[in-house]
């Protein structure tokens, strides 16, 4: 084996279509339409190539991957190739028939998202009446099938105080794993940041709850915890470093190191319609641009943590500073670290309504970029 180590995971964003309209959706502001989506043959070829270059896990996501009529076909190919297959779903359309089809195709694991442990809040956030009950039914189906069950709770300042109840619900539903994932502030999340960002005190209280539950449930349930980095001293190693572990494919077939990378200017992301995954991973400018440490400015360049956090997140540096080449301002060593505190102060005084995710381009206003 020569060159850069092979990627670990393929994030297959099969579609941007989704029955929910969460105001922190990680999809881009400009959602891709069904007509632009890669077809079945296109995805099958991606899966074949993924196995060939050493990808070990496939994450079928979206939007809502269950709206793709060929999901079971794609899943069967992935598992047939020995790829460990995760499905990341809202669960609202996971009925008995679909569950049986997924099992038949060899799915390894399903991650089921909840917007809240409070049913009415859950349904309000997704703008989908009845969603909570459907999600609970989906959880029971997954559990009954014998598959491992992960619950994912998206947390923000409106529900962070309910983390103990979320974990209690996960115990009740016999989840093997629970993700307590604070909203990440990109795309729709960034637009709604003033309405979502928790205060430092809230975040600290949330972290105490998660750590207590982890200690109590060790050996029984894994709890993964994702924090917002607005209160951090050091940035997150976004995606484990640019183009180090993952290839993300958008619904139309564009390959990116992360799902938000299309927000960056001056990039031409290669398409799987005309470029092989091998070439994308090993030769494309888009993947090589920020891989490693050679691109780093100060303070990263002389930092002993440069191979720990990999300079943080390029999309965040661009979104908050207008400069994708800068150190992520989440780092307290960044000369622009004050933009994080400014955003926190802004959200503490804000009484902003949510802007729910919508498909229509005209409705999708440009994000307001605080600090830029």
């Amino acid at each position, binding site marked *: *084996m020569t060159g850069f180590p*092979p990627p670990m995971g393929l994030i297959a964003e099969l579609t941007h279509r989704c029955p929910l309209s969460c105001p922190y959706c990680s999809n881009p502001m400009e959602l891709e339409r069904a007509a632009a989506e890669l077809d079945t043959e296109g995805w099958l070829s991606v899966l074949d190539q993924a196995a060939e270059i050493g990808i070990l896990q496939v994450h079928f996501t979206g939007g809502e991957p269950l709206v793709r009529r060929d999901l079971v076909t794609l899943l069967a190919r992935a598992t047939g190739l020995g790829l460990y297959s995760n499905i990341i779903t809202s669960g609202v359309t996971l009925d008995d028939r679909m569950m049986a089809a997924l099992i038949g195709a060899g799915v390894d*694991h399903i*991650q089921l998202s909840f917007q809240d442990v409070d049913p009415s809040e859950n349904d309000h956030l997704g703008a989908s009446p009845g969603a909570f009950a459907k999600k609970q039914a989906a959880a029971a189906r997954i559990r009954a099938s*014998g598959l*491992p069950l*992960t619950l994912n709770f998206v947390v923000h300042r409106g529900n962070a105080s309910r983390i103990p109840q979320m974990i209690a619900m996960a115990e009740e539903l016999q989840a*093997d794993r629970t993700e307590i994932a604070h909203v990440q502030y990109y795309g729709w999340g960034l637009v709604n940041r003033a309405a979502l960002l928790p205060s430092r005190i809230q975040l600290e209280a949330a972290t105490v709850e998660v750590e207590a539950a982890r200690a109590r449930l060790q050996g029984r*349930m*894994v709890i993964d915890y994702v924090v917002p980095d607005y209160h951090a001293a050091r940035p997150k190693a976004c995606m484990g470093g640019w183009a180090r572990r993952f290839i993300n494919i958008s619904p139309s077939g564009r390959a990116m190191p992360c799902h938000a990378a299309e927000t960056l200017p001056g990039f031409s992301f290669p398409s799987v319609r005309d470029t092989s995954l091998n070439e994308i991973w090993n030769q494309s400018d888009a993947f090589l641009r920020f891989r490693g440490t050679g691109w780093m400015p100060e303070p990263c360049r002389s930092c002993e943590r440069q191979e720990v956090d990999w300079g943080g997140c390029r999309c965040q540096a661009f979104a908050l500073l207008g400069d994708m080449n800068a150190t992520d301002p989440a780092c307290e060593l960044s000369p622009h670290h004050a933009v994080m505190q400014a955003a926190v102060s802004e959200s503490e005084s804000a009484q902003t309504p949510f802007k729910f995710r919508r498909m229509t381009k005209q409705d999708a206003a440009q994000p307001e970029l605080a600090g830029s």
Partner: protein
Amino acid sequence: MTPRLCTGHKLRFDQVRGAWVLLGPERLFLPDEHAVEVLRLVDGVRTVDGIVTDLAARYDAPSDAIRSDVVDMLADLSARGAIRL
């Protein structure tokens, strides 16, 4: 004590890397050679004693030294939710 892989975890050989990998729900481990030797014996039937005896015979090594390595490794993977003891 009979260790087994937690639900949804799979140990498999990856041809591209020429190495064993342990795959689980949205996580993966790249175990070192020693860990692989232990993990290949974790089948939900063999006990820890059985695994130690097997490895001690195979490597002609004292059981006590092997036992402490095996127990430490299994405890670590158990804490990380990959093995149930």
